[in-house]
């Protein structure tokens, strides 16, 4: 005992010398020290994730918005051009056109055909990608800071001067159809496709972002060129940069490359989906006879990205199924029952209200038991909404995740661009943690009652229909579909 005590004294001295912030715990209950989990949490430091004034913004005369964030830690630069429209602005019969257009933009621009463009990017060691989602499209390129001007020229070529060659479009259409056939091998992808269809038949949200074989078969170079002409106009665009650059030099180059760019108004963002979706409970079984594990999704309409109480909703969802190990769903279905490896819930926020989805997977014979647990937790989140402790934990988690999610300057800029796309306040990242802490248990109870509707959720299962149907017949009208069946 003497030896331990002496050593501890030595340690305490060492800690004190080091100018510690947290004093070693006093002796208590016969223990040498008190572990941190028994002490009250230290107050959050809430240090800013971006230094004040570090982000520069301006608009060019043609309406193009520019967002810059210098970061000289590494000799690298990320550049992007986004437009504030995406798949939601495409009619359902051309589903996948924005994604198709983006992929075609990567295959030839300016003076370079597909192979020359790939070589020009890759000989710099750079990465180029055009992405699309429901509400935006973006061209991104990143590489070494010393290649800044060449990267900028490639960005401008791809964003403003894609070639849309007919032969490339043909090749891409074939590839896309093959990808769609292959994607059907993945049960999670199938669950997503058929959940969308169950909620939003006839609306663009009812088809996968990347389209279906029937819609992709209609895509060609002319349609891509036309979409590009309408979406990629300066008043609808934002250029962003993060990394190791001189802002004055960069702005001068951006002015040369994008200052003379002109164009009209962007197309409308697309109509909102009908609500409620679905109007009544239904069960859809996507038949995959060989699977050992069933995919399970419970879904109904949710909220839009600009929903006024979106922070209240995200805290509610964190308690329900959005926070992994801490969530009620994980505790019930994984930790206590051992019925799954992963379960979660999610409000998919788009410009118009997207779906609220609870999803998981389990061994086929246990499917009904899991559905019952999910339905019970959805009922309970309204009947027994988050208590003070649950809400406090969710608030701390949200504030902590927020800082962790903005660790790199690329992540900060991506967040600022996303706020811009949805017309959300520029200072959202400065005010986020305060807004999170202002939420009360009354707030989360209110949104739980307003937004969670297990009684009319669609239930979508992927797995062997023969084994699944008897388990769910009493839950509502059951429809069994072939995973590759053409859609109506």
């Amino acid at each position, binding site marked *: 005992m003497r030896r331990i005590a002496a050593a501890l004294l030595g340690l305490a001295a060492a800690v004190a010398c080091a100018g510690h912030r947290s004093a070693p715990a006093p002796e208590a209950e016969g223990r040498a020290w008190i572990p941190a989990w028994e002490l009250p949490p230290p107050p959050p430091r809430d240090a800013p994730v971006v230094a004040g004034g570090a982000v520069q913004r301006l608009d060019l005369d043609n309406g193009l918005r520019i967002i810059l964030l210098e970061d000289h830690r590494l000799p690298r630069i990320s550049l992007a051009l986004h437009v504030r429209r995406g798949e939601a602005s495409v009619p359902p019969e051309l589903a996948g056109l924005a994604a198709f257009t983006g992929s075609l933009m*990567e295959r030839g621009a300016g003076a370079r055909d597909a192979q020359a463009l790939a070589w020009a990017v890759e000989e*710099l060691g750079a990465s180029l990608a055009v992405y699309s989602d429901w509400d935006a499209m973006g061209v991104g390129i990143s590489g070494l800071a010393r290649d800044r001007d060449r990267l900028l020229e490639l960005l401008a070529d791809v964003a403003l001067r894609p070639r849309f060659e007919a032969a490339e479009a043909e090749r891409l259409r074939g590839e896309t159809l093959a990808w769609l056939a292959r994607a059907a091998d993945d049960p999670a992808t199938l669950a997503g496709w058929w959940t969308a269809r169950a909620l939003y038949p006839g609306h663009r949200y009812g088809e996968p972002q990347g389209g279906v074989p029937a819609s992709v078969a209609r895509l060609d170079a002319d349609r891509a060129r036309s979409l590009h002409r309408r979406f990629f106009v300066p008043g609808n665009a934002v250029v962003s940069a993060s990394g190791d650059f001189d802002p004055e030099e960069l702005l001068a180059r951006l002015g040369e490359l994008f200052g003379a760019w002109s164009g009209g108004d962007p197309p409308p963002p697309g109509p909102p989906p009908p609500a409620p979706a679905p109007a009544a409970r239904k069960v859809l079984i996507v038949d995959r006879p060989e699977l050992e594990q069933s995919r399970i999704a419970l879904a109904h309409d949710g909220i839009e990205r600009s929903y006024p109480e979106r922070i209240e909703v995200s805290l509610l969802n964190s308690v329900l199924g959005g926070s992994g190990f801490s969530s009620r769903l994980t505790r019930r279905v994984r930790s206590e029952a051992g019925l799954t490896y992963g379960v979660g819930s999610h409000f998919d926020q788009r410009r118009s209200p997207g779906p609220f989805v609870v999803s998981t997977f389990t*061994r086929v014979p246990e499917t009904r038991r899991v559905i019952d647990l999910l339905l019970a937790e959805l009922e309970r989140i309204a009947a027994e909404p988050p208590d003070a402790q649950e809400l406090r934990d969710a608030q701390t988690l949200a504030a*902590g995740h927020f800082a962790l999610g903005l660790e790199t300057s690329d992540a900060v800029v991506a967040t600022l661009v996303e706020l811009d796309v949805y017309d959300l306040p520029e200072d959202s990242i400065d005010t986020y943690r305060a807004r999170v802490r202002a939420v009360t248990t009354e707030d989360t109870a209110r949104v739980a009652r307003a937004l969670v509707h297990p009684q009319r959720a669609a239930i979508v299962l992927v797995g062997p229909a023969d084994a699944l149907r008897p388990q769910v017949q009493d839950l509502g009208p059951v429809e069994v579909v072939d995973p590759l069946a053409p859609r109506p």
Partner: protein
Amino acid sequence: MPARPAHALACALLLLAASAAAGPAIDDPALRTRVTELENGLQLLTLEDRTTPVVSFQMWVKVGSKDESRFTGLAHLFEHMMFKGSAHIAPEEHARLVQARGGVVNAYTTNDYTVYFANVPAEALPLVIDLEAERVAHLDISEQTLESERQVVLEERRLRSEDRPNGRAREALFSLAFRAHPYRWPVIGWRSDVAAATVEACREFFRTFYAPDNIVIAIVGDFDAADAIARVTRAFGSLEPAGSIPRNPQVEPEQAGERRETVHFDLQGPVWNAAWHAPAVGHPDADALDVAAQILSGGRSSRLYESLVRGAEQALSAHAFLYEFQSAGLFMAAASVRPDASVERVEELVFAEIDRLRDSLASEAELDKARRQIEVALVGSPVTNSDLAGRIAFDTITFGRIRPLSEVLDALRAVTAADVQRVARTYLVPERRSVVQVVPPPREGDSG
């Protein structure tokens, strides 16, 4: 309950970090790492970076699936059990407590090591250190928690391996390429073993491998290193070292002839995989093999893309990469075959590109491009605290030191076209390869 008596209290023994100067062009933060070795052998790596108010904590335990003996999958199953409670912490509380302080926490297991990590707001670091030490000192494995977690792992196995064509392919490929070495079984284990693993086996595994002299801890981010060293010393210093850790003795015998396996699975797009035996991590030929893989599949200007994806339109993607284990290596090639294409044709095209690497020198332009792509991936990607913590811990375990980026880049830049051809001729030969295809079962009425 396994516990280690508290009589080997540590005095922190401070060693200076690898002090080799970084090359003039790169400021390599990893070189500021402070290395501390506790008296019980635990290695602690601390690296302060105050840019953002977050900290990454990683505990690397030098045990993986290769160390299993009776039950395959035990290292991974055990990793799950580390979240199921200890003397002073209830099951699942570890993760909940860290999340309630705003952090993320999880773990993963590989063939060679097991990593527990937490990324947290700066003020939560003391909690993470104390919780980690608590479970290493006082883990409590009960029949009840093992039973529920076993079911969770079996669901994970269905998800990753049994219901997924790529998982089927990888599992078949490793057990084909390795005959003797424990790399032949999957990290998640065979289903029968996961179903049968016992509480006593878990406890024995814990006693054998979770000793301080088998652990490296890395902490990177916004924290005070002296505080953290003191706290880790206080929390972990009383653990008893193992002295020596038993390891499986198998060495993979030289492969002398191609091996093949076909897996039937109801799918649209077949999967094709091949693997050639290659050196273990740390071998000087690794750089040339990396460059070879980059020439084959580094982007849309690469050979496999131009041949299989764009040219013949047989595959949707094709990749080559060097898979380095601590005591063996595989050079792998994998292709996603188009539903309307032929898996035999895909194989023919991949092997033609492998032959080309052996038969002719890559052009200087192609070589420059490949080296530049690897270089930009090394220095041109955003780096998080977690990335840095992983790098310094991996290097410490693998090389016994932190390799400066400048050294890594110098080795890469030194690779010549002749080197690429030489490693292709040495390793990428038919006698050393194993081939797996996952294809739909023959339909009724088909012959064969």
